[in-house]
């Protein structure tokens, strides 16, 4: 992807600069005249990361036009800042150079390279897929390589919202003049890509939405023609930009849209999009817009058609069961309760969890075996459920449409023959081939239920009995 940077937008890119001594990157430099690392600035201070786009509740409360922006399906594959920056770079956006380091020694060496190339200070940023890194102490500045190494060793291994930091991003610190927010999302209500911008960047955008909703401006890209230049321009004007930064903004907004399209992203955000002060090669001071942070989530339905994107999934931050579930082709989410659930269909699986809770139990997982699950899938799903030692009872709820009840029953029988520990289970199978399923289950002496409520109630009682 990064390789594509050389080809980007001619208007935008001047050239690629290779930083002496830097092995890890070729810096694609934006509209300005970057000659040194000092020019190619990195993030500074408390890194503005946020968890979400403005909330629907905020809109109502604050008088946003209903449906003007609805929360997107921000649910796909989250990728790390460094990878998100690579995708922006590939579309020709001005992103200052960075390196990724996994040890304090690597941090030190990277910092030294940036300092040697002219940076006054470096920034070290935790790479985790949760917001609030700055607040958690996961973003620090350093003036020397030794200091960077010390900062790095403190951040690496740090726990941020339950996630252990395994890598950091190192870059030159920027001299920030002003921070903006710019984001592209899929808006379900209007069924379009919406770009949002605010002059109040660098803070959580939802804070802005709550306190000053008028400060968030938005345009809807045309569903057939895409984002038009005049739309991008009106967004830039709305946040107060004028020449020459306005033109840079238009190019960046178009680049965000292009990044979304090129990667099947659900969400592309740059916060802050910063005006940074630099010194040009001839010594004159100047300002330009650069992307100091990046957040992208990918639509997993689109992953297979983009070579290389699957590799951006950060396995370090996944639950180990996630990869196994992907292999089985099922949807599995590990939760904290004691009742393992196996259901076909997402809506019914959520409902089953809700009923478990309604009857006083706690679900151990969400598990949708999908449509038409075969017996080997059912067996694999059962292994996944049983791998959680907290599971004290199992509830199987299948409403066969495409899925055949007897196939599920066969899978359950196979799974039980192989399972390492005995866990009480209640099975409810209705719909397609339910009669055959009932016969198989009866022969194998499974506990069964006819209604969903009865099944949930029984599972809760079983879990409580096992706990005693």
């Amino acid at each position, binding site marked *: 992807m990064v390789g594509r940077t050389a080809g980007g937008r001619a208007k935008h890119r001047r050239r690629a600069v290779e930083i002496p001594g830097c092995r890890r990157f070729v810096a694609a430099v934006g509209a300005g005249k970057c000659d040194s690392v000092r020019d190619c600035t990195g993030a500074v201070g408390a890194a503005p990361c946020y968890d979400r786009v403005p*909330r629907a509740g905020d809109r109502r409360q604050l008088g946003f036009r209903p449906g003007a922006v609805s929360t997107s399906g921000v649910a796909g594959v989250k990728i790390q800042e460094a990878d998100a920056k690579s995708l922006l770079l590939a579309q020709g956006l001005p992103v200052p150079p960075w390196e990724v380091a996994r040890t304090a020694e690597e941090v030190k060496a990277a910092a030294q390279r940036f300092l040697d190339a002219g940076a006054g200070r470096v920034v070290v940023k935790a790479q985790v897929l949760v917001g609030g890194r700055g607040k958690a102490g996961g973003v620090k500045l350093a003036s020397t390589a030794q200091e960077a190494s010390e900062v790095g060793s403190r951040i690496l291994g740090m726990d941020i919202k339950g996630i252990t930091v395994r890598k950091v991003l190192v870059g030159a610190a920027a001299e920030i003049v002003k921070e903006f927010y710019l984001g592209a999302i899929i808006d379900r209500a209007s069924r379009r890509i919406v770009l949002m911008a605010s002059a109040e960047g660098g803070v959580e955008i939802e804070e802005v939405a709550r306190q000053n909703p008028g400060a968030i401006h938005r345009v809807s890209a045309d*569903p057939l023609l895409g984002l038009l230049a005049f739309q991008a321009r009106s967004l830039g004007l709305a946040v107060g930009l004028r020449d020459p930064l306005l033109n840079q903004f238009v190019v960046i907004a178009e680049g965000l849209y292009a990044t979304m399209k090129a990667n099947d992203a659900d969400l592309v955000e740059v916060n802050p999009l910063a005006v940074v002060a630099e010194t040009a090669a001839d010594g004159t001071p100047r300002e330009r817009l650069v992307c100091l942070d990046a957040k992208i989530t990918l639509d997993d339905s689109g992953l297979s058609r983009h070579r290389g994107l699957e590799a951006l999934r950060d396995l370090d931050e996944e639950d180990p069961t996630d990869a196994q579930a992907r292999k089985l082709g099922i949807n599995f989410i590990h939760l904290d309760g004691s009742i393992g659930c196996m259901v076909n*269909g997402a809506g019914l699986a959520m409902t089953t969890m809700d009923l478990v809770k309604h009857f006083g139990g706690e679900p151990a997982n969400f598990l949708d075996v999908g449509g038409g699950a075969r017996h080997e899938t059912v067996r694999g799903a059962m292994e996944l459920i049983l791998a959680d030692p907290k599971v004290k009872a199992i509830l199987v709820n299948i409403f066969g449409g495409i899925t055949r009840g007897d196939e599920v029953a066969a899978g359950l029988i196979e799974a039980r023959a192989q399972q390492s520990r005995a866990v009480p289970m209640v099975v409810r199978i209705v719909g397609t081939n339910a009669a055959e399923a009932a016969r198989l289950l009866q022969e194998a002496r499974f506990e069964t239920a006819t209604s969903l*409520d009865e099944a949930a109630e029984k599972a809760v009682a079983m879990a409580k009995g096992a706990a005693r």
Partner: protein
Amino acid sequence: MSILVGGDTRLVVQGITGREGEFHTRASMAYGTKVVAGTRPGKGGQTAIDGTVPIFDTVAQAVEATGANTSVIYIPASGAPDAILESVDAGIGTIVCITEGIPALDMIPVVEAVRRAGARLIGPNCPGVTSPGRAKVGIIPASIHVPGRVGVVSRSGTLTYEAVQAMTDAGIGQSTCVGIGGDPIIGTTFLDVLRLFHDDPETEAIVMIGEIGGSAEEEAAAYAIEHLRGVPMAAFIAGRTAPPGRRMGHAGAIISGGSGTAAEKIAALEAAGVRVADSPTQLPKLLLEAGFRP
């Protein structure tokens, strides 16, 4: 009457020779649906379903030869958007796309093209539409239905079956059951279906099956306040206990940043006079409480 599909439906099946396409076409025909054609590029002139359904190379040819007015799509995600557009181009009025896993960005221009053509798209990633006793387009099991006067609209698949089964068991029949699909970008929303039910003289009560994520249920509630006063309505929302930020299978089913929660949706629906069930099995009881007389 019924909405979307009925006795006048003349169905063309796009992808009739595939495993799913053939299986569900048989079930639709067994239910009495008029399946007039199938398409499979390169196999035009042959027949499917034991020689009973002619295969055409294109939807346009199928429409020309058979007067097809409705299409159903059982084509993999890579080809499904094109299949929808082909139906639009051929003048099909009602397009039902069962296919799951279509990237959201592909659907944005497609739903716009459908809108501009004045056609209607149900789905994608939906179980289809059944008007009990008249026509079944899609994969909803036939056995769960009885004809009646309650319209059912849902974002879910198997959960719909659960709710409809509970109604049938309680002797409450359905006018039409519409599965609108669980994706973020869909052709027909709750609101659209409520409008159709509003205009359908045979639909006297409505059941809505929603789930977490998005704001479609809230929009439907706002419509109900304005236009469905006096219509008995009951709803169920899945995902009350779903953790925020985790996607529950459907691309649409996620609580992002505290919005799209079940609690918000339930509050909006109750404010609109819709009775909200704790379990799908309670829906028949709530309909009766709301004044529906089967």
